[in-house]
């Protein structure tokens, strides 16, 4: 049973990737699993300089979902390169540098700074609903999304994965725009913009009022968008949104995802990724699948 995949040129031991923002910088989980068995690690979104994130409550639970408004708190590219990346080098796992910028130019500079040995690809977050600059605004307008993509491409030799926002009327328009602008792959979905209210205090639960919804609650929306985008573009797709089991992962691949990411499941249990990877393997075996790649985009309509 083959579980290895090649995703925009990166060789991975499994199609199951740790999603940005839910796996820190990887080493935090070294005692919970064999990091060498993880498909790849998309690290917490990196800014050119450190970001402090949002004030107040940053996480809330909703029905089968999680709302977060971390606001991209991160130690910045420099700390990543000097502290985390060297420590990750003792593991045989591809590192995807998830990154953000406050404006188009900064996206380019951040990309350039992250184009170093040890980083396998860039994942460009144009879809964070929790920051006023550098967030969703870039991912909801196809033209701006294309500009960011082109700027990042100009500044790196690494494969560029553009991460799309689901908070749009037509996800295929954004997908086509970033493909045309040179994206090597697309990842989707980032979180849906949502809100929680504490009726007793009549206040928003989250410090930032709104937050991004993730987890099984959004899986139907994510699957639909992966399927729509698969029909709209030719570049590879990394699918995510509510994957909690190996069968969920298989569903995303059947819908058209070449690889998948697991986010909220790791928040719920730090050992989710090895469990899901094992379940996907067992699912393949039980369904006479010899090569996990062979199920990609096999949805029968």
């Amino acid at each position: 049973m083959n579980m290895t995949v090649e995703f925009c040129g990166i060789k991975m031991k499994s199609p199951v990737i740790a999603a940005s923002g839910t796996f820190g910088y990887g080493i935090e989980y070294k005692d919970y699993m064999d990091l060498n068995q993880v498909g790849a690690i998309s690290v917490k979104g990196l800014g050119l300089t450190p970001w402090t994130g949002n004030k107040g409550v940053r996480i809330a639970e909703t029905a089968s979902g999680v709302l977060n408004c971390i606001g991209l708190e991160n130690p910045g590219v420099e700390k990543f390169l000097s502290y985390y990346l060297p420590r990750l080098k003792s593991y045989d796992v591809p590192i995807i540098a998830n990154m953000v910028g406050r404006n188009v130019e900064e996206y380019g500079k951040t990309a350039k700074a992250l184009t170093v040995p040890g980083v396998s690809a860039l994942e460009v977050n144009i879809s964070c609903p929790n920051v006023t600059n550098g967030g969703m605004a870039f991912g909801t307008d196809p033209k701006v999304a294309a500009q960011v993509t082109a700027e990042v491409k100009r500044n790196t030799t690494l494969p560029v994965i553009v991460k799309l926002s689901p908070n749009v009327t037509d996800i295929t328009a954004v997908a086509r725009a970033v493909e045309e602008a040179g994206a090597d792959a697309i990842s989707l979905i980032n979180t849906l913009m949502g809100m929680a209210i504490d009726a007793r205090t009549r206040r928003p639960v989250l410090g930032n009022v709104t937050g991004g919804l993730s987890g099984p609650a959004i899986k139907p929306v994510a699957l639909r968008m992966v399927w729509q985008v698969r029909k709209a573009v030719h570049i590879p797709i990394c699918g995510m949104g509510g994957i909690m089991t190996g069968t969920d992962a298989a569903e995303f691949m059947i819908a058209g995802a070449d690889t998948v990411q697991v986010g909220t499941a790791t928040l719920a249990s730090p050992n989710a990724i090895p469990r899901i990877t094992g379940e996907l393997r067992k699912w393949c075996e039980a369904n006479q699948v010899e090569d996990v790649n062979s199920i990609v985009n096999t949805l029968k309509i």
Partner: protein
Amino acid sequence: MTGMVEKGIIIRHEKMGPDIWRMVISLPLTAKKAKPGQFIHVKINDNSRLLRRPISIAGTAPGKGLVEILYRVVGSGTQLMSEMKEGDTIDCLGPLGTSFTIPEEGEILGVGGGVGIAPILFTARRAKPGQMTVVIGGRNKDEVFWKDLFPKTLKQLIVTTDDGSYGIKGFTVSVLPDVMKQGTVRQVAVCGPGIMMKKTAEIAGEYGVPCEVSLERRMGCGTGTCMACVCDRKAGGHYKVCSDGPVFDAAEVVL
């Protein structure tokens, strides 16, 4: 300090007060590693609930592989926890976080309010006989069951209630100066409402005694990766309560 996911059988589950429950769980690995101040991150037994609930460890019996917690039903997750039965399996991630300092020499003063008494209880159970003085506060006499859980070997146990229905009427902090004045306390450990921790730290500071506080924040991962649980460092920037804490030197965090 890395925790682990351990599933254990609920050995005992009993109601202690109007809305407070005590649960003893068979978690041999956690019981062996746990230190006072650390917590377990408890999975709620319902598929619609994804986030775990942080609950302080109130005691362990490492020989028997048991972990004890005390929790108050405040919302839907703790409500669902309270409906679990003895014999059910519960999924716990832990032990997580930093712990209270128990000095080799010298006395400790433990101050606890509400369910914040739980980690103080665990500290008292690990302290040497005669080493620890404990001041606990509750709303009224329905909450003084706590006192019976403390070891008899404490130097002293002082109970206050907001309404005076048991022990000393008033707040825990009002009795602290009297204890500190004796000059024997070398370390203060406090867990409870924010104002109580702030005041306790101030009083300890006046006597030049180090004080550790246990902070509460809404948590995601519990493992220091999601950045949900941050608190402000006095030196600027953030600490993560789940992994840099929950126990902090009061001098290092903004209370």
